[in-house]
């Protein structure tokens, strides 16, 4: 059994302008000691998905299931979910200032958190653990700095404090939502380094939500790409970067200037993401897709198995057409030319997953 298994999660928000369909059927899972990266741009639903799991999306209509250690987070009583939060599942946000109380010393905040969840731990003992945790995340002179206020720490140090708090109760799962986005490159490198090290040490499961494909390349074992509230592609890290199937994933990768420093023209994804109230028919990505076929305009592709093991993609292109190679390009062009050719007939070796 997986530590966390989310199936067909759907989240929508009623607004005065219509119903915003923020997440429309996403499934993913994560095991102990593994890192799942969820990548997507604004409005992709990547943050809403995990916030929903933690009961942080008030006023939303939620369906689906999210089994954590065998229990469904979505139907759990609020009080129970609250107890789970922090103790078994910890969250790290982009802005540590919004999650640290400005008027309490950081040590006290960690102590309070430990004692809320483990009332049998004494104050002094908890304080010792707080200092130990600060030391663990690389804060110098931890025994003195437990008595500092959040504003006395720099941005990078604050994010370390957040990580220390997240680790305080030895959670099974850490959800990190853009934890390094607000940080500078050199500090970001420190934090990612730290997270990888600690994850190995404690055998924690990690869900890393980010828009930054560079961060994902550093840290994730498996990657889920989301677009307009739907999963677009799921694969292990290397497959995703070198043998991507979904044209959106390819488009994202080609939008980034190459590390080799060539100045060949970037290939951006044309157009804009769709409105989440008025979604296009068929595949949500078809208005921006380079390989659009007739079928894409009317039929929404499910997540289908493609070439590699565990590799799935929500795209009607032939399953063997992965990566940037000439052969894959030929397959894509053929498919496009043939229009609505069925992949299960054309490429017999592919069977739908799920």
């Amino acid at each position, binding site marked *: 059994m997986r530590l966390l298994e989310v199936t067909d999660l759907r989240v929508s928000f009623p607004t005065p302008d219509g119903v915003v369909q*923020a997440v429309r059927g996403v499934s993913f899972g994560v095991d102990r000691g593994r890192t799942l990266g969820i990548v997507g741009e604004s409005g992709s639903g990547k943050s809403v998905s995990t916030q929903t799991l933690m009961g942080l999306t008030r006023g939303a209509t939620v369906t689906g299931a999210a089994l954590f250690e065998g229990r469904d987070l979505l139907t759990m009583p609020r009080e129970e979910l609250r107890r789970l939060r922090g103790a078994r599942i910890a969250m790290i946000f982009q802005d540590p200032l919004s999650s640290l109380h400005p008027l309490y010393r950081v040590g006290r905040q960690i102590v309070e958190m430990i004692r809320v969840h483990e009332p049998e731990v004494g104050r002094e003992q908890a304080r010792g653990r707080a200092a130990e945790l600060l030391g663990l995340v690389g804060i110098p002179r931890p025994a003195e700095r437990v008595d500092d206020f959040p504003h006395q720490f720099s941005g990078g140090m604050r994010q370390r404090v957040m990580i220390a708090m997240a680790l305080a109760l030895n959670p099974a799962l850490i959800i990190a939502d853009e934890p390094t986005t607000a940080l500078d490159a050199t500090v970001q490198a420190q934090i990612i380094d730290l997270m990888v090290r600690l994850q190995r040490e404690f055998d924690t499961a990690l869900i890393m939500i980010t828009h930054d494909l560079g961060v994902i390349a550093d840290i994730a074992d498996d990657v889920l790409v989301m677009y307009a509230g739907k999963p677009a592609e799921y694969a292990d890290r290397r497959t995703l970067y070198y043998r991507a199937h979904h044209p959106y994933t390819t488009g994202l990768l080609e939008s980034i200037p190459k590390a080799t420093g060539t100045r060949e023209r970037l290939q951006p994804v044309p157009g804009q993401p*769709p409105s989440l109230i008025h979604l296009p028919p068929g595949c949500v990505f078809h208005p921006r897709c380079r390989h659009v076929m007739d079928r894409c305009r009317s039929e929404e592709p499910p997540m289908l198995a493609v070439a590699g093991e565990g590799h799935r993609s929500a795209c009607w292109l032939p399953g063997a057409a992965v990566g940037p190679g000439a052969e894959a390009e030929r397959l894509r062009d053929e498919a496009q030319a043939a229009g609505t050719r069925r992949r299960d007939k054309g490429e017999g070796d592919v069977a739908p997953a799920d």
Partner: protein
Amino acid sequence: MSLTEPQIEAVHSGEHAPAVAGRGPWRLAFDRLRRDRAAVVSAVVVALVVVLAACAPLLAAITGHGPAERFPTTGLTPEGIPVGPSAEFWLGADGLGRDLLVRLAYGARISLLVGVLATLLATVFGVTVGMLAGFFGGAVDAVLARVLDVVLSFPYLLVAIVLAAVYGASIPLMIFVIAFFSFAAMARIVRGQTFAIREREYVEAARSLGAGPFRTMFVDVLPNLIAPVTVLASLLIPTSIVFEATLSFLGLGVDPRTPSWGAILADSVDFYRVSPGLLLFPAALLLITTLAFNMLGDGIRDALDPRGDRIGTR
């Protein structure tokens, strides 16, 4: 949780959104207001009060009762007690045998006139002072902020009594008094908003183009003040109406012979035991009117500011 800015963007600006040409911020706000039931009901009530005020002469003609005309024989019982509602006097008569409905209709004119004019005056002053203080900051701000503090610490009722005693009660004086004591609140909020707007990148962009301070103030700052100012103004109107009623009740407002809601209430004090309608009708009208204006103001606030930044309540 609420949607973040980019998510809202994704909602409004997607390619597949229906044609929204010209659906600017004002139009969007109006559409939201239209869907707010409480606001629509309030707007209808406000409209009815306006109709009542507009129809005052018509009511006088239909009933044949002038607003200051006394009917000692038909309006009062032989014992001198005002008659209740009847075919002749729809809402009854007051202690002097005058038609209450006709007087309330004429009173509505005074209330609306004073409420709207005082608010307009307060808004013009408040926006000017607040924007200058907020935009220029420094010494200009220091001086203007102190002036506002002084205004806000005046005992307004005492000042009103003294002014009424010296110059005699009149509508223009009352409008001036009410505006004088409301503009400071407006100025403070405008000042705060201007401070915030001044730091926005589009103001910096205007400066980098070479635009002067006054152009920037009118073109870039003022349009962004309209939302908070509209909200505040719509809430100032009922305050001014109550202020007027209070002053008139105390005999410090308009000429006592002019029918005004406050004066009518004051007149009813001697009779409410024998003729409760005399107190009930004007009080209810005052309450309903201010409530409607307040609710409409709240609706406008929500419509202009759907994410609930609560403008104007700092």
